[in-house]
């Protein structure tokens, strides 16, 4: 009986949703990353597509497609679901449109805090927050008498203890794959040390300093406690390591917890997995993590009708209380009516501890790219920390000069 009631109410709700948007024309084509929360959002947006054409591309390679696809006129996609970092190349090349008028007209359920404004222009509407935080295996920690680590120094000590106990060979894991992932770990750790990437007000790099060296040394210590193949491990790979029971402490995205804690895999490991706050480092009080938002942007090189249709269907999703209630486990939604569950702990703690957002600067992508390739040799033990940082700065400056930032 209860099931039938739910089914009926769901039916009622969905017809209501369809009637709500009432989109008559235009076409909607979405480019988005591929993880469960985004799929839910797109499905919710589809509910109210009306008679508009609706297409979606979910791809882990979204970053590589976005700029070329939106540069075309008319552009391939009308909507690009972006984050702090991936919105920057779109803004640098002037590929997305401000949506103040659309927000005013159709954005009734969207909260002000969801709006990403640049100089007063709404460039994106955020719907979820993300960060990287610690995951721990409570059973392993308990067995070895270790408290839940709060700093990376404690993570190192705990991992060493677990290894010494002969319990696990590689007790720690983080996405250290050379390239974007490794650079992201550096960014987190450097911010945790209180570092600034650029000299104030300029695009001059500022990482070859004591904080940079401390960051690299901490990364190396953690890498030595990880699976020796760490330079090829991305978030998906360490998730698999965790599910095979090879890891006791891990730094991973909050958005990955959904598939990590699903019914697939060893129930014992899932039961003992606990999500905790991100760690601090080097005696700092802000976490060694960056805050991220995911939001949707509208392509500039697309007709106004398409932009309007796209905005209306996505605004429906980005303000849907039903969606956040139904998918409360999948993400930390920024939408009104979201009640945080146990899987939101990481992000909420990070915000409470005063974590900084990932720097949304035009030249940050170049710095990120330089970090991803130039610090590898240090981790392999072929280079000193100072030399690696010097290389990063030199590689960054060459690229920044070519791009006209210096």
């Amino acid at each position, binding site marked *: 009986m209860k099931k039938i009631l739910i089914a009926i109410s769901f039916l009622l709700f969905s017809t209501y949703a369809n009637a709500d948007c009432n989109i008559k024309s235009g076409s909607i084509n979405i480019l988005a990353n591929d993880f469960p929360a985004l799929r839910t959002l797109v499905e919710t947006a589809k509910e109210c597509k009306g008679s508009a054409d609706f297409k979606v591309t979910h791809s882990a390679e979204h970053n590589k497609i976005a700029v070329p696809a939106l540069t075309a006129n008319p552009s391939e996609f009308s909507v690009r679901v972006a984050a702090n970092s991936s919105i920057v190349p779109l803004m*640098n090349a002037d590929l997305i449109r401000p949506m103040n008028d659309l927000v005013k007209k159709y954005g009734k359920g969207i909260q002000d805090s969801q709006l990403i404004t640049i100089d007063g222009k709404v460039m994106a509407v955020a719907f979820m927050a993300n960060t990287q935080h610690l995951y721990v295996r409570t059973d392993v920690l308990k067995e070895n008498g270790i408290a839940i680590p709060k700093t990376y120094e404690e993570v190192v000590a705990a991992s060493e203890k677990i290894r010494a106990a002969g319990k696990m060979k590689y007790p720690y894991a983080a996405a250290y794959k*050379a390239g974007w992932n490794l650079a992201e770990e550096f960014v987190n750790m450097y911010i945790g040390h209180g570092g600034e990437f650029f000299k104030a007000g300029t695009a001059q790099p500022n990482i070859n300093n004591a904080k940079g060296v401390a960051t690299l040394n901490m990364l190396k210590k953690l890498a030595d406690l990880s699976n020796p*193949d760490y*330079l090829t491990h991305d978030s998906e790979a360490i998730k698999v390591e965790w599910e095979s029971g090879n890891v006791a402490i891990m730094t991973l995205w909050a958005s990955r917890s959904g598939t990590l804690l699903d019914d697939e895999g060893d129930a014992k490991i899932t039961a003992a997995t606990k999500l905790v706050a991100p760690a601090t480092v080097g005696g700092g009080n802000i976490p060694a993590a960056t805050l991220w938002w995911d939001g949707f942007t509208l392509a500039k090189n697309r007709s106004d009708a398409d932009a309007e249709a796209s905005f209306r269907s996505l605004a429906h999703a980005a303000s849907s209380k039903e969606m956040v209630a139904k998918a409360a486990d999948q993400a930390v939604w920024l939408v009104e009516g979201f009640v945080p569950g146990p899987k939101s702990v990481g992000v909420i703690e990070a915000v409470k501890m005063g974590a900084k957002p990932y720097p949304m600067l*035009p030249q940050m992508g170049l710095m990120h790219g330089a970090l991803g*390739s130039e610090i590898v040799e240090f981790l392999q033990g072929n280079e000193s920390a100072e030399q690696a940082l010097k290389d990063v700065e030199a590689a960054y400056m060459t690229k920044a000069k070519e791009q006209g930032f210096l």
Partner: protein
Amino acid sequence: MPNKNFFWFFLPAGLAMILFIGLPIISTGIQSFYAQHDQILINVKKCDPFGCKESVVVDQEATSKIREEKPLGKFNGFKTYIDRNHLATDQVSEFWEESKSFGEFIGKVGNLPFYKALVFTLTYCIIVTPCVLLLGFVIALSLNAISRKIRGPLIFGTILPMIVTPLVGSLVLFWMIDAEGIIGANLQILMDDPYLSVKSSKSLTWITIIIYGIWHHSPFAFVVFYAALQTVPQEPLEASIIDGASRLQRVIHIVLPHIYPVVTFVALISLMDNFRVFEPIIGFSAEGSAQSLSWLIYDNLVNEEVILFGSAAATSIMTIIGISIILAPVLIRTWREFRTNR
């Protein structure tokens, strides 16, 4: 064939080549001389769910004006070619002055991205090409000698590495060398080192990629050699057997001279292919330890959130020049032979 006939036969292919190869190369060449305009940054207030803050963005109004005037960007001449990410002339001369020994100098130069990639590309080329030629030839000889009944299936089995998609082939090996894969785990036991990782060790990664390269390219050499072996005349071979020549002597003095032009051809194609090594680096996720020139181009175009067209174009042009230099001796030799034959 009269020249006129040749011209008409060649015309469609020639046109396609100009359109799809010639013009893009010219356009790449032009792009390599340009860099982005100076970015005009302005300070604005940025707000997101985590708060507001003053920070810089690119001033679109001002930028779009400059872009309309000069869509190609700022003329940069050869500056992209000599910057640190390419030939790094300034850095190299600086290293030359401050280095105490030649070894130190080489070490410092090898740390620059372009030279790092060049060293790997050349090492790969120099080791893989002869190995492919030798292995291909040995397989062709042995298959040519066995009974016709089982030759068919054996030939099929031999060309399998070429049929398997490069990325799939490298992924299979990638999983085998994983710290928990069959090769990786056994190596750990064999070397008695639980922290040994093929994937994170630079030299082991190089060896893996080179072995993969030989495995993947040998069938090509084999197929061509095998076809060439079918054309070796039987009379001189029989005559030499009567004269008491050993098998090795027959191969060296009769078979090899006969198929020599084919060997040159295979060497040429292999060199060219190997100089552009790329897929195994992606397949093995070996970006950290091994970078090739082709990978540098890829990195500039897709790995950064900002696309570096000038940088990628400059590397492309230098790769083309590199291939020409490597092929030059073989080409000159072929040309000379062609002249003397006439």
